Every structure is written in C-alpha cells, then in structure tokens.
C-alpha cells in the first residue's frame, strides 16, 4: 500500500510542477484590473475578449493562425510523397531526404532560424510573410514525416498485395487502400505541425519579426514593455488549443502508438 501512496505522491508532485505556472497564469488572466496579482482580485473575462476585439492582438492572432494553417499543410505535402516513396520503393540513397526532414527538428532551433534569416536576406525576400510559411513548413516537416512513416509501417502489406492481385494499379491502390489507412496519421501529423507552428517564436521572429507580429512575438514584445493581462489570457488560450487538439488525437487515434508505444513493425 505504501507503494501506491508513494506513486501517487510522486505523480502528484510532477503534475503540480507542470501545472503550477499555468494555474498562476490562468489566475492572473481573470483579474478585474490590469494588475499582476494572484490570487486574482475580482473576476473578469474581459482579457479573453481582448484577444479578439483589440485590433493589435486580433491581427497577431490572424497572422499566427494563417501561418500555422498554411505551413502545416505544406509540411504534410512534403512529408506525404516522401514517406510514401520510402515505404513503396527500395532506394537506400533516398533516406538522405528522411535525414534532411528530421534534421531541422533535432538541431537547436536557433540554428535553423539563423539559416533561414541568412537565406532570405541573401535572396532579398527578407520580411515577406510567405517566407515564414515556408520556413515553418520545413522546420516542422519532421512531425508529419514521423507520423506518416509510422502510419505506412503499420499497413499490412498483404492488403495492398491483394488489391494489386485483383488488378488495381498503383494509383487505385493508393487512393482506395493506402490513403484511407494512413488518414489518421496524416491528420495527427498536420495537427502536431499546426500546434507547434502556432507556438513557434524564434523562426518566425528571425524571418518576419521586424515586419509582422505573430502571437508569440506579440507576447514577447509586450513582455518587454511590461505586463498586460491579455498576455495571460492568450497563454491560457494556447494551452487550451493544444490540449484540445491533442485530446482529439487521443480520442480519434492512438496517441500511445504515435509516441512509440508499439515497435514500428506494428506488433
């Protein structure tokens, strides 16, 4: 029995550590006045309304969402054919592209960000909004690439074989058998890339930080000039979006599998 209590105590401590800063931020976000006070003085949800009504915050929100929607889509568009090719063909040298797809995520983000900064500055497109979209797509291509590779690995090849024996050509097999099977992995790959792009700071800052504000950039800029409660409400909003998206992935897919609970051959 002491074991159970010990375990609960340990889990409780970790949960408290992970939740404490978010609880405090949620607390200060409902302050009635513009004070940084916890426990909150009074209660007001006005600061949540600010995200959508204040023109500056709303603009930052629109930028962030546009960036995340587009870059995640491009990331999936890059990852899908690549993962499919690697699954369908024996071409060892093509693995180099898999490594290239994984690299931006493994290296410290500052490096990728500075790479983009020097590149866009050199080609003379520095500061254009679309450069951030492409940069994020490359930066986060790792996520759909990993989920899709897992998805392809989990396909029972005999299913595909059966379809081919019945006379289906590559395109038909892809459309009728393969795509439906990997759809959950595709959606989760998109969702991962979307949430991370929404939260990303340094790449966005180094590509478009001087001309455009995304929400994380706006929070950081606001932080330098002092505190506004909208920063807190935006943070809570972000946590909620992330929890919602990952909750949905867990509800409709197998999040344990996505995080490597089963070995890649599907057993």
């Amino acid at each position, binding site marked *: 029995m002491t074991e159970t209590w010990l*375990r609960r105590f*340990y*889990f409780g401590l*970790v*949960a408290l*550590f*992970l939740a*404490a800063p978010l609880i*405090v*931020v949620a607390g*200060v976000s409902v302050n009635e006045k513009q004070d*940084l*006070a916890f426990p909150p003085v009074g209660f007001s949800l006005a600061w949540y309304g600010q995200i959508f009504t204040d023109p500056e915050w709303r603009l930052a929100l629109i930028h962030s969402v546009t960036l995340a929607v587009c870059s995640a889509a*491009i990331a999936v568009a*890059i*990852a899908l*054919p*690549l993962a499919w*090719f690697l699954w*369908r*063909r*024996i071409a060892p040298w*093509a693995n180099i*592209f898999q490594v290239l797809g994984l690299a*931006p995520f*493994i*290296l*410290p983000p*500052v*490096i990728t*960000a*500075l*790479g983009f*900064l*020097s*590149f*866009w500055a*050199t080609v003379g497109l520095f500061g254009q909004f679309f450069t951030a979209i492409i940069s994020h*797509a490359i930066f986060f291509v790792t996520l759909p690439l990993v989920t899709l590779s897992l998805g392809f690995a989990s396909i029972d*090849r005999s299913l*595909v*074989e059966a379809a081919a024996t019945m006379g289906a050509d590559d395109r038909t097999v892809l459309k009728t058998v393969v795509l439906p099977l990997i759809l959950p992995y595709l959606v989760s790959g998109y969702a991962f890339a979307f*949430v991370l792009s929404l*939260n990303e*700071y*340094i790449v966005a800052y180094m590509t478009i*930080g001087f001309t455009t504000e995304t929400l*994380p*950039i706006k*929070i950081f800029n606001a*932080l330098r000039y002092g505190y506004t409660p909208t920063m807190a409400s935006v*943070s809570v909003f*972000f946590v909620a979006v*992330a*929890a919602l998206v*990952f909750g949905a992935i*867990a509800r409709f897919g197998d*999040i*344990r599998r996505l995080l490597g609970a089963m*070995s890649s051959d599907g057993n």
Partner: protein
Amino acid sequence: MRREAPKSVADYTPLFFPALMLIVFFVVPFSTMIAVSFFKRNPAGFYTPDFVFDNYARFLSMFFGGVLGFSLMLAVLVAICCVAIAFPFTYLLTRRPRRVQTLWLVGLLSVLSLSEVIIGFAWSTLFSRTAGITNLFVAIGLMDKPVALLPTFGAVLTGMVYQALPYTILVLYPALVRLDPTLLEAARTLGASPVRAFFNVVAPALRNTIVATLIMVFVFALGSYLLPQILGRPQHWTLSVLITDQAIYQSNMPFGAAMAVFLVLISLALVGMTLLVGRKENAL
C-alpha cells in the same frame, strides 16, 4: 505489395517535390549560413561577402569561453535533473492503465508544445513578487513578506527543466513501455522488492537508453534561447541567446553564423554519439 526498386524515372516523381523543397529551403539556407560565417560584418546591411576567419577567431576570447562553458554546464544540469525526475516517473507511468497513460500523454504534449515565450512568462509570473509563489509562503507563515525570485540562476534552471521535462518523458516512453515485463517478473519472483527491482534490474537494463536520453535532453537544452533572457541576468545567457543577440540586435550576422556553425558541430557530434549508443543497445 512488395517494395520494389524504382524501375523508371517516372517512379521517382513522388520524390521530386519533397526533394526540391528540402534542398532549396533547408540545404541551401544551411549552406548560406556556413558561407555567411566567413563573411565580413556590415553594420549598414547584413554582411559583405568575403573570406575571413575573424568570426571564428573571436571564439578564442575569454568572454566567449565563459559563455560556452556556462551553456554546457547549464545544459548538463538540465539533462541530469530531467532524467532523474523523468526516468522513475515514465517507468511508473508505463505500468498504469492505458487510459491514465493517454491522459498524461495529452497533458505532456500540451506542455511540450507551449511556446518558450509562454513558459518564460508563466514562470516569471510564478516567481514574481506580486503574484508569485512567495505569497503562498507568506500565507502559510513560512516567510515574512513576498520577494521576487528572479532574475536568478535558479529561475533559469527551473524554467529550463520545466521546458525539457515533457520532452524527456516522451523520449523515454517508447523504451520503457516496450520493456520486457518478464524481466521484472523474474526479479520479483526471486524476491526483489519493486524499488530494488527498479534500481537493480530496470535501470541497468536501460543503461544505454538513459545515456542516449541524457544526450538528447542536453542538445534540447542547448537550444533554449528565451528562458535565460526572461528569467536570468546577462551572465546567465547561453550560446543560443548570444547567437540571437549577435544576429539581430548587434547586426553581426557573420559572427552569429560562426557561433551557430560551432553549435551545429557540437550538436551533431552528440547526436552521432546517441546513434552509436543506440546501435550498441540493439546489438545486445
């Protein structure tokens, strides 16, 4: 459908778009950065093309040595703290029912995906004088009056452990969840207590995983660029902060690029080491 080697050029078409994007927007920018690291600073613009080693020569200064030493020390500390907390936690988590695991994984992913800006802001609030944790200590009589706990080294370390902990757990999770349960059963049958079985059987069996995770978290922590700025003083700045600072605020992109190249080399060497460690594990 069996895997086949591509027979014609047409079979390569799916590779075309991904290869093009990755080469143009990753390989080329990366090479540009390396090239820029040999260029000369141009205070009016970004840089002047040249071929000089000045940017690398600046590494030899005392100041740079200090920052590098501090960055490495901080990242090592973060890695040790995270693995020490995460390893027993992840082990216990993988023994829980699936529903509990799923719930925790969703929570961990949500924290992991949080922007460094938000993590920095949240901890700066928690450590602040007016809304911080010390108010709680005052309320229960541990302290006389609330104080600000930042900017301090402890605040930087706490923030970075917070940022890296979910990552550590998720890196350890696959190895621990796939751990052969018979190993533990054998230990228990032979009379080992769960705690003893954990330390004498589980931990040694996953020695290489632990080393690989330490290195992964170390590289992850090296990448932290905002927390030292928000939660620490300038002497707590790391290499990542310095790169940003040079490239953006000091408009010295070539020196920033040279430092970035250096950071790449450190990271690559370490990632290479994890691959080697991982290979040994598989060979056993």
